Structure formats: C-alpha cells, structure tokens
C-alpha cells in the first residue's frame, strides 16, 4: 500500500504526543514514557477513538442512505429539509433523542431495562475492532477474526430478550421471544455458509480471506453460500422480510416499544451498526473486500486510500440491495420464518459447504479460474 496505514498514523500521533510530554520530565520518567509499550498503548487508544468516530459517522450516513433510497423507491424524496438533501436529519434526530427524558415504566426491571440496550450497542461497536477495512487498516489482525466477529454478532438476541423482558410489556415480550427464536434459527445456516468460505479460503482471518479472492471473488463459485449468508444476515439484522420482532402491524414497535429517548437511540444506532457490519461481512467474504479485479485499470486502484474507497462503495451498494429488498417484499410470519430457516436454509447451507469442498478438491473452475492457494 502506497498510502499510510491507520496504524502508522495513530502510532506517529502517539509518538508525537508522548515525545512532547516526555521532554518536560526528568530522565527516568521520560524513559518510561517514551517506552515503546506506552506509545503503542496510546496508539491503540487513538486508533479506537478514530474507529469509533468513523463507525458512528458511517452508521448515521447509512441511515440517511436508507431513508433516501427508500424514498426514491416509494416515489418520494425522503429527508430534504435539514442540511443539504437532509444529510443532517439524523444528527437532529440523535440530539433530540439525547435530550428527551428517558421514561422507565414503573413495573420495569431497572437493571435489564438499562443494561440491555447499552450492552446491545456496545457489542455491536466491538465488532468494528475485528473487521479490516483496507490492507493495514484494522485494529487487530487476529488469526480467528471471522470467528470472533460472528461470536460477538450472536450476542444480540440475549440482550434484546433481556431488554424486552425487563420492560414488562406484552408486545415487547413477544417481540423479544420472536427475536431470540429467529436469531438462533438463522445462526446455524449463517455459520455454515461462512464455513463454505473458510474451506475455500483456508483461513479464519478476514484479511487472508480477502487476499484469497485475488483471482476471483467468491460470490461466483460460492453463490449458494452467498444466498444463504444474505438471507441469514437479513434475519440477524431484523430487516424486512424478516423484521418480525419489530413487526409494526401487530407488535406496535416490537421489543423497543417501551424505550424512548437515548435508549431508543441506542437501539436504532445498534440496529444500523449491525446492518453496516452485515454489509461489510458480505463484501469481505464474497465481494473481494477492498481489492478490485485485475482488469480494472491500475489508476483506479492506486490512488491514495483507494482500498477504502472501493470498500465503502461496495458496502453501500450491498446495503442498497438490502434496502431494495425492504422496499419490495412483505414480511413473513414467525412460524413460516422458522420453518424456512430449519427446513430450507440448513440443507441449502450444507449444499454450499459440499460445493465448497468440491471446489477445493477440483482447485480450478473453467469459468472462474484457479484458486490461488491449495486451500486447506
């Protein structure tokens, strides 16, 4: 990569800061401060702050993107009034919700009522720590980053159920139970679809998986896995057609019926964080991450921050597909959803695993080319 990585930026920043501070202290203290470990520690903190800011900004932008796209699908314009083309609308919403009183229902369980949304939000944020955004732009190059990401991702039903149960509302409770059932049912095919990718890529490391897609992106040969993954992701993100837990027609607002003010903002933000992460995972696993195919002219891939540009473009396009699905499909029913999950999705995902194994055995596919490495 020609450009500076996020690491080096934050490391330099940390070095600069600590160097400045250390210079005023006498020697033993200065030596301790300018120790490499302290600088690295501060660099990680700066990095985390930057990442947090970036993820929040992107999430808010994603909400705007969805509102505008939905508006266009529905023959109207979406937010227009606040900021240019409504860009500031979500900031207004956020500030307003921040100012609102948080009402705690009298019969609600205080512990669950307040920790549920917070934990939901925090677990969604942690995920950004393991996802690479471009080469060198990740916080921890963990060898098992994919597994960790999915593990954290599957925390959510617990917290949703806790907050739904503790708000002591029948609609919330039903929404929470549906949510838990649905997320658990779709966890299995989701993981199996990921297994297909892992078999072909031969690694649990997301960065490695991206670099394994140099010759061809995985969406072609692993199309079945992609379908299963997208369907499972829709269920995990609770978007139409699988948005039963907050099915507006029967369950008022689902599990966040009793939540208002900042806690509701947490839910909203965490939902879209998860949507963003879902889109990012699709890009990383199936659409080649930040890399572009070789026929793309090198001018388009070599400008500064080109990796991040292509990566974000792909992410937003994938999310646009999710919005398109939301605009075009009705909602399914709980039992149908679960039946589809257990009866259709799991066989399909097993098929995807089988196909992946076959691909690794054959190594070369006529249309797509050969695998870069022999796989597992």
């Amino acid at each position, binding site marked *: 990569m020609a450009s500076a990585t996020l690491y080096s930026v934050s490391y330099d920043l940390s070095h600069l800061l600590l160097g400045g501070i250390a210079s005023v202290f006498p020697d033993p203290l200065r030596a301790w401060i300018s120790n490499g470990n302290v600088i690295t520690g501060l660099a990680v903190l700066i990095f985390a702050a930057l990442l947090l800011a970036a993820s929040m900004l992107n999430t808010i932008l994603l909400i705007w993107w969805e509102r505008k796209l939905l508006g266009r699908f*529905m023959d109207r314009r979406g937010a227009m009034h606040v900021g240019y083309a409504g860009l500031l609308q979500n900031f207004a919403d956020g500030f307003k919700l921040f100012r609102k009183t948080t009402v705690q229902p009298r019969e609600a369980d205080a512990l669950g009522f307040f920790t549920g949304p917070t934990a939901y939000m925090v677990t969604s944020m942690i995920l950004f720590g393991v996802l690479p955004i471009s080469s060198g732009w990740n916080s921890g190059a963990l060898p098992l980053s994919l597994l960790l990401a999915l593990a954290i991702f599957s925390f959510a039903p617990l917290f949703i159920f806790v907050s739904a149960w503790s708000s002591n509302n*029948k609609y919330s409770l039903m929404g929470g139970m549906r949510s838990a059932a649905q997320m658990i049912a779709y966890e299995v095919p989701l993981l199996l679809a990921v297994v297909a990718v892992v078999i072909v890529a031969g690694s649990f490391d997301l960065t490695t998986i991206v670099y394994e897609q140099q010759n061809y992106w995985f969406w072609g040969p692993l199309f079945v896995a992609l379908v299963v993954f997208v369907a499972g992701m829709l269920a995990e993100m609770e978007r*139409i*057609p699988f*948005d039963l837990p907050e099915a507006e*027609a029967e369950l008022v607002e689902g599990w966040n019926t009793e939540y208002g003010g900042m806690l509701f903002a947490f839910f909203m933000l965490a939902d879209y964080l998860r949507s963003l992460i879902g889109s990012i995972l699709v890009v990383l696993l199936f659409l080649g991450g930040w890399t572009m195919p070789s026929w793309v002219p090198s001018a388009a891939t070599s400008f500064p921050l080109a990796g991040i540009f292509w990566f974000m473009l792909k992410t937003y396009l994938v999310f646009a597909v999710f919005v398109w699905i939301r605009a075009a499909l*009705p*909602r399914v029913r*709980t*039992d149908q959803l679960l039946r589809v999950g257990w009866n259709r999705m799991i066989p399909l995902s097993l098929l995807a695993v089988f196909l992946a194994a076959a691909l690794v055995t054959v190594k070369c596919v006529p249309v797509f080319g050969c695998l870069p490495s022999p796989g597992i």
Partner: protein
Amino acid sequence: MSEMWINMGPQHPMTHGLWNLRVRIEGEVILDVDPEMGYLHRGIEKISEDRHYNEVITLMDRTCYVAGLAWEHLYMLAAEEALHIRPPERAQYLRVLCEEFQRIASHLMWYAAFVQDIGLMSPFLYGMRDRDLILDLFQSYTGARMTYEYMRAGGVRNDLPPGFTDRARKVLDWLLPRFHEYDQLCLGSDIFHKRCDGLGKLSAEECIRHGVTGPMLRSAGRKRDLRRDRPYAVYDQLDFEVAVADGADVTGRYLVRMEEMRQSVRILYQVLDWLDRHPGPVMADQLPRWLGAPYAPVGREGYLLKRNYPKGVGFSAIEEPHGEALAYVVNEGGEHPYRVKFRSPVFANLAASRHYLVGYRVADIPPIMGSVDVCVGEVDR
C-alpha cells in the same frame, strides 16, 4: 406462555382507526376476540334529528370518511324517497360517477393500508399517490378532497366543469395499468401468498348467518351485489360484472377488490360517455322551497310552507365500497327528519370477527383485519 388478554387498540398500528380489538392468546394462537367499539361514536343519528334535510349531508361525508360520496348517495336516495322528490337523470348519472370514483378511491386507500399491514412498504405510497389523482378530480367539481357536500335533495349541487370528462378519462387510462402493477407487487410475491392464502376463512353460509356483506361475501363465491340485484340510480343501464372469487380468505378479498376497481373503471367509461352526450339539468325543478336547495337561503317562511308537506318514509340500500349500506329516513312533517337509521356494512363485518379470527395467530390479525377494510367512522357513527 400461558393465556393472556392483549389490547390491540385504540392506539395500535393495526387498527386503522379508533377501536380496540381485545384478543385472548395462548402463545401466538388466538383463542377469543372481543372488539370494543364506540371510541368514535359521534351520535350522527341523533344530530341528524336536529338538522334540516340538506344539512345532514355534512354529516354523511364524515360518517365514512373514505367513502363520503357513497354515503351521501345512500342518504340522498332515502331522503328523496321520504320527501317524494325525483332527481333528473343527469344527476343520477353524476351520482353514479361519484360513487364509482369513490369506490376506486376507497379501495386504493384499503390497498395502501392493507399492504402496510403485511409489511409491504412501498405500495402504501403508490396507493396514496394514485388515490390523490381521483381526489383531484373530486376537487375539480366538488371543491373538496374528502368532505364534499356535493349531493342535494333533488339532484347535485353543480354540473361538471368543462373538460372534466377528458381529464377523468386520462386518470382512468393511467389507473388501469397501475392495477396490474399492484397485482405484480402482491400476487407475484411468494411471501404474499404465504401470508394471505387460507387466512380469515368465512364461508358464504357463515357470512350470511352473521350478516357479512361486500367483498368479504363475494370472496366466498356468493354473487351478491346490490348494484346488480336491486339496481338503484341508473345501474340497470350500465354494463359491468360482479367481481367474485373463491377461497373466502384474505387473498380472495384482495382479488375481489382489485377486480371491483377494474369494473368501476369500466362503468366510469360508460358514464363519462353518457355525460358527454346528454347535457341537461342537474337539479329537479319543482323543489319544495323550504329545502333551500341548492342556492336559496332557508327563511322562516320556508318552514311555514313545510307544514302541509306529506309525510313519508324513505328506505335505500346501496353497495358501498365496504358492502351493503342501508338508510332509513322517517319524515314526520317536521323541519328535520324524525329518525335516521343507517346500517353500516363494516359494523356487521366486525361483529362477526370472532368467526374469522379465532384459531389463527397474532401475526395473522393485521392481514385479516386489513382485508375487512375497517372504517371506524361508519361503525360508530
């Protein structure tokens, strides 16, 4: 989960109005339902006894606010019979024009609300968008979008503005292909069929036992349409089919309403042609002066003239967009109607809700109740 009662309403996104569906559920299965009405009971029948005959029209628009012109027509048919007035033919054609346009507008409103109930978001906007075109037409000759006060005892208030029929035809030409698009969005989707097929079953015999009429009855295969069975106004001179479906379920009701809109378009083309060819008066000549219609202010002497006016009873029934609506007007010679009684189709359709809801799931309530097309204004009156 053990049994529990949940209140769906009065503020609930499913209700589309102000009523409360109390549901007893076990898990997600419905064991019993008990609709609780009356949150919008405005005493229209009582206020009507306090108003002059033409003033009741104001209330009729607000009785069913998605089908105001149909209710005006209903009331006018009964009141004219009670007052022994006969409107000219052009006025009757104009009323049929109003009613059929209103039927399309009401069904579009239903479509918009119904698809939202099953989670389909964009067609809500499409339905509202196309409904607005019809409301524009209404606005061009009645002056209002929803509360028209257009009909009068003895005819209608005013004739169509110049160029109306061409504009109306343009709207109809636009609407016909839209119905096809709606069908593609709904019937083309597997999830729609999964959500709607076989839900809310109510056989024709059950429908009749419980007084259910309109698209719900026709979706059970019974071809009852008062426009055809008991033609009022000029429906006997118009050519149309009665839309029926089999299945007696939510999909059936969807099909019936879609087909009804197409038939309404067919009727409207005929009516517009007739109106082009037959100019004429839109108010009856020899109107009793105390009616004050359409322009003359009602003076004190006008009511004195009323004294010797013959008594009468008016009875009318029309096929409203929701079903069979019925009006009963008693004229006892006073300035005001002595008693006005309305029969709302949705009232009876809702009363039977126990028979088409029990046994289904909570998630099925929105599509089923959506397919009933609840208009609370005419239920509570």
